[in-house]
């Protein structure tokens, strides 16, 4: 057990803020990359919540629209109500915002340099590959049978090859889900 004042009963607002601020600065590769670490510490380490509660919050944040990082808002809310929501969200987003702001300034100022252009172009395939990985992990988590995989493949082809809005793929997937899942 680390951290002053943290007990198995749950953290206070400041404790949540510090916890998520620290976590966010380690989360290279995005919010999904931080989820295993979040789970390890909140459930197994600090005993703030049960495994089922955590899994439910994660599933809801994935199913709801918007950035999946907002799972921290839901976790904070379930732990400590409104103040928990605010402090968890600010902790996760604030420090990262400052880092990105500074980095954005650098890349603008140094935009003409050859090495920066090479660095930017060279990171593109890694970013796309990690997006692909997120999709693959999500498809595994969402699957409850072969129908799920068929829906995933169909939606992937639709988004890849058509110019129509991806919303149709989501709606279609939901309707297939009502009928078959």
């Amino acid at each position: 057990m680390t951290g002053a004042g943290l007990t198995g009963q749950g953290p206070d607002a400041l404790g949540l803020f510090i916890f998520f601020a620290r976590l966010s600065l380690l989360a290279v590769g995005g919010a999904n990359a931080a989820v295993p670490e979040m789970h390890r510490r909140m459930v197994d380490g600090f005993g703030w919540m049960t495994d089922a509660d955590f899994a439910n919050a994660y599933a809801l944040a994935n199913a709801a629209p918007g950035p999946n990082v907002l799972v921290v808002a839901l976790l904070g809310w379930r732990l400590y109500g409104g103040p928990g929501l605010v402090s968890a969200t600010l902790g996760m987003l604030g420090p990262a915002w400052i880092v990105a702001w500074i980095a954005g300034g650098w890349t603008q100022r140094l935009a003409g340099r050859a090495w920066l252009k090479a660095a930017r172009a060279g990171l593109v395939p890694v970013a796309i590959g990690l997006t692909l990985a997120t999709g693959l992990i999500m498809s595994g988590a969402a699957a409850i049978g072969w129908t799920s995989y068929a829906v995933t493949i169909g939606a992937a082809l639709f988004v890849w090859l058509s110019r129509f809005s991806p919303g149709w793929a989501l709606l279609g997937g939901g309707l297939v889900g009502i009928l078959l899942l």
Partner: protein
Amino acid sequence: MNDAISPGIDTLGPPPGPWGLFTAYAKAASLGFGGANAWCRRVIVEERRWMTEREYAEVMGIGQVLPGPNVGNAAVMIGRRFAGLPGSVAACLGLYGPPLVMLMGFALAWDQLGSIPTVAGFMHGVAAAAAGMVIGNAARQATRLRLPWDLIGIGLCAAAAAAWFQMPLLLIVAVLGPAGIAAVVVRGRRA
């Protein structure tokens, strides 16, 4: 610098102010089932045409190596680039504000309705389709950028390392980032 990654047919629209950034991100995030990246790319590159496919991919690449949420990092940098501090704040408010409200509503509704089979089936289907959307978005990006084979190989390595072998992302970025940069430099010399 590198004709291997060409942006394709892109005529850019007029650059946005803070309000435009807010509405674009609010729209992308509110529609963004399964994560906001796919929708942000679509709205910014394909609908509003503020950035080329390549520019957007490059900002996402930087967002990926910075700590914190990728799309959020990209929103901070894109907002700053077009409209300074107000633009950056507006983009983030659009990205996080509306979905946060919806998520809370969603969680409350789920507590009430989650056990109804029709609702559960619909949500399972949407989750599976959202995963497909994220995969299709990656494929669409790679296709539109006409990535050469070596960069596609690096991308697939990154995907396999993260999804299959579940390697730490820091390690993946530390190894494959320089590999990608080296591949781009070598191509630039040959061209």
